[in-house]
């Protein structure tokens, strides 16, 4: 399979996501100005500060030409993963419900946190067990999840680990269909024991397994 990682001006964790995805299968960068997804099987909207996060986190990136293709891809059932700034972009693009608000501390926070897998029946968590703990870092200023409507919660911060005041300890949500998934923690920074943990690999492994099942062998 092939992952495509979108690069906006101001993306910071694009190469990290590319390298993480490349640990499980092929991965390419997708340029924000190109209306071309290069036939990828899954799109990753990476972390960082797209367009400087000026105006509001993710608010400008959603208008990038590549997002037209991403939106169409998502509507056709394609897998779209948004990490941190990518999660913010997907909420701004209305591919995911809810919004990300400034942390209750009003500060940037980096922390290695424990997550709980709430829903293991998604293309992003099928390699996990329900209730499993994942150790993955967060790093953001605008990560407090809020939604006035009920949402499909995939990951929660473990009890006492909520770093930003997110509603109901929500760390990651998907759309109803399950093909679009956004999370504030950074699984691409948890793919190597040398630099932290390997728990984030399960997200990428899940995607590969899902795509493999769908493709004719």
């Amino acid at each position, binding site marked *: 399979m092939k992952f495509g990682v979108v690069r906006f*001006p*101001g*993306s*910071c*964790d694009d*190469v*990290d996501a590319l*390298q*993480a995805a490349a640990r499980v299968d092929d991965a390419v960068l997708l340029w924000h*100005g190109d209306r071309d997804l290069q036939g990828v099987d899954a799109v990753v909207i990476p*972390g*960082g*500060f797209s*367009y*400087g*996060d*000026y105006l509001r986190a993710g608010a400008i990136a959603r208008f990038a030409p590549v997002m037209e293709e991403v939106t169409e891809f998502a509507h056709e059932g394609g897998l779209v993963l948004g990490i941190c700034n990518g999660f913010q972009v997907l909420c701004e693009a209305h591919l995911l419900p809810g919004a990300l608000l400034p942390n209750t501390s009003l*500060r*940037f*926070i*980096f*922390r290695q946190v424990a997550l709980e897998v709430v829903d293991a029946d998604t293309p992003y968590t099928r390699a996990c067990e329900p209730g499993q703990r994942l150790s993955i*870092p967060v*790093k953001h200023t605008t990560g407090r999840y809020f939604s006035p409507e009920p949402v499909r919660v995939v990951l929660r911060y473990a009890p006492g680990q909520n770093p930003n005041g997110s509603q109901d300890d929500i760390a990651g949500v998907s759309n109803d269909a399950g093909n679009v998934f956004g999370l504030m923690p*950074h699984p*691409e*920074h948890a793919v*190597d024991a*040398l*630099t*932290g943990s390997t728990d984030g690999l399960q997200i990428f492994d899940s995607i590969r397994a899902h795509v493999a099942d769908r493709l004719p062998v």
Partner: protein
Amino acid sequence: MSPTASPSKHRALGLTDHEYELILERLDREPNDVELAMLSLMWSEHCAYKHSRRLLRRLPTQGPHVLLGPGENAGAVDVGAGFAVAFKVESHNHPSAVEPFQGAATGVGGILRDVFAVGARPIAVLDSLRFGDPTRSDRSRYLLDRAVAGIGHYGNSIGVPTVGGEIYFEQSYEQNCLINAMCLGLAPRERLIRSAAVGPGNVLVLLGALTGRDGIGGASVLASAELGEGDEAKRPSVQIGDPFSEKKLLECCLELLDRGLLASLQDLGAAGLTSSASEMASKGGVGIDIDVHRVPLREPGMEPFEIMISESQERMLCVVEPERVGALIGVCERWEVLAEPIGSVTESRRMRVLKRGTVVADLPVEVLVDDCPLYDLDPIQPAIQIYQPPDRLLTGDESPAETLMALLGSPNLASRRPVFEQYDPVVGSRTVRRPEEADAAVLALQDGSAIAVAIDGNGRRVACDPRTGAAEAVYECAANVACVGAEPLGLTNCLNFGNPEKPHVAWQLTEAVEGLAEACRALGIPVVGGNVSLYNEAPTGPIFPTPVVGIVGKLPDARRAGRLGFLHEGDAIGLVGPFEPSFVGSELAKLRGEPPRGKLPFKDEQAVRDAHTAVREAVRAGALHSAHDIAEGGLAVALAECCVAGSVGARVNAPVEVFGESPGCGFVVSGPEEAVVGIGTVIGRVGGPALEISDVLAVAVSELAAVHRDGLVKFA
């Protein structure tokens, strides 16, 4: 030509009468307003190093791994496998004292540009910060809060990890805080580029942000004079940072270099276009013409002198062969980076500024860059105590356990977590050791090896004894690097001092540079670059003399990078090195209200070097489970830190006074008995729920952890 400058203007711009006469002599005429503005900046302390250049020649700069030495935008060392690491530390003290958020942010932005100006991708930032006493100063808490936020704002947003640093609080920094930022970058060796302008006929292209009126005279107004009353009025002299612009500029410059489109590259920092262009011309032995009419402006009606000295951020200057300008502009358009040809390289050896073809300034490059007089200092050791004693927080009647708790919870020694949690330490996917995991940050390289980096400096100790105190900064930094198993390859320093025209500050500076030079020679570490920040004074007096040292080292196997925390119950604990501590300049002396005075302990340089080697080799061999240098607070605090980091206790017999200090000379290590015996003296065992030092103290690790964790929280 513009009208001639009036005779008294030079003083307002910071030039002495003698310097102005020298200018008249060299030019054989009076400079006009544009020329005088350019000269006053190029002849400022900040650009000309006129009070420090002669001293700095004493520092050793040669070494087997050095690729770029002092004089380039950043120094660089060979790290093997075809790669180089470029690095430098720089101050942004006065801007941060006036406006801490933007001052600190643009300090980071500036040091990042220095590193990618030599063709290296920035891979890590470290910060060395000094503030006044947070327990009694709203101002210091405000400066801490905003400076940390500014550093995070820039570093986090541009995607460069902040992997380490240090913070000290001392009364002498109350008015004049210190914000030193260090950056290191990684480059394939062949991508390293110098700043010398080459090839008459080549095109000078300005890259990046629009030029505005921000930062006009920042270098001369802020950086080369003492702070005083009414500094709020200087806020317009502080630049505003835009990390998003710099992120695009960074990616764009690296792509231009990868495509081989640039002949030379230079960042724009203090004194803007004037400094960058004349430095490029000077290094290349050429001249440069700039047409200010072609410089893209942020606001209309800017005068030529304003355009030439603007310190607007996120700009770079490059030299390009004429046939490559089209390709360059194509790359810049893709990155949405403005690129404008603004001039050309000439054979004239003159720096000419034109406005729509009319010459508005015409100066020999030599006069701008080389002719500023260099001053010998007039050092006199002060006969009296310069610095006020700190508050007396301990009487000396406390028990050792109470003393240990007071030290661990003091602002200087408490956990830095409230600060470093505001920084991203992992972007780039190279960070093997994060803050508080080891004494140095460790960054993995592609081939399985790694580089280590640490930054150190203790102004109070330098205030006691400048020569030994400065040497200790080198020893301690090298010790930190040894604890992760790395061998030092090169060193950068930032010399933060008061007004060098005052004899006692001149003495501090002279002695400190001598101490740095001695320690660098003793350990065989070359100085590859750095920065000098003088005039760090308020009406209340000078700051502690504060040389800050950053060392980059290399270890062969990233997987064996050392950690500081005790790991296994039953491990032997060893004391390594010629550790003969004393209370002079110690944290305990500070808490007891003693002013900085006294002679620091003697160091046997060879024994120190041998100890560093022994620890480094044992860590590299994977023989030890932990290694930690003994620094502020002495052996007791070092042991407590090992216990807290490992969440395990220890039982120890202390062979020395447990709160005495001698930085860089002693290590606490743990591991199997045979490994520890090979390099030091076994003083105890890891295990149990408490730190027990026989006949001295016993405190539960949970209590140590709590006081260590909470010490800084209330101020940060």
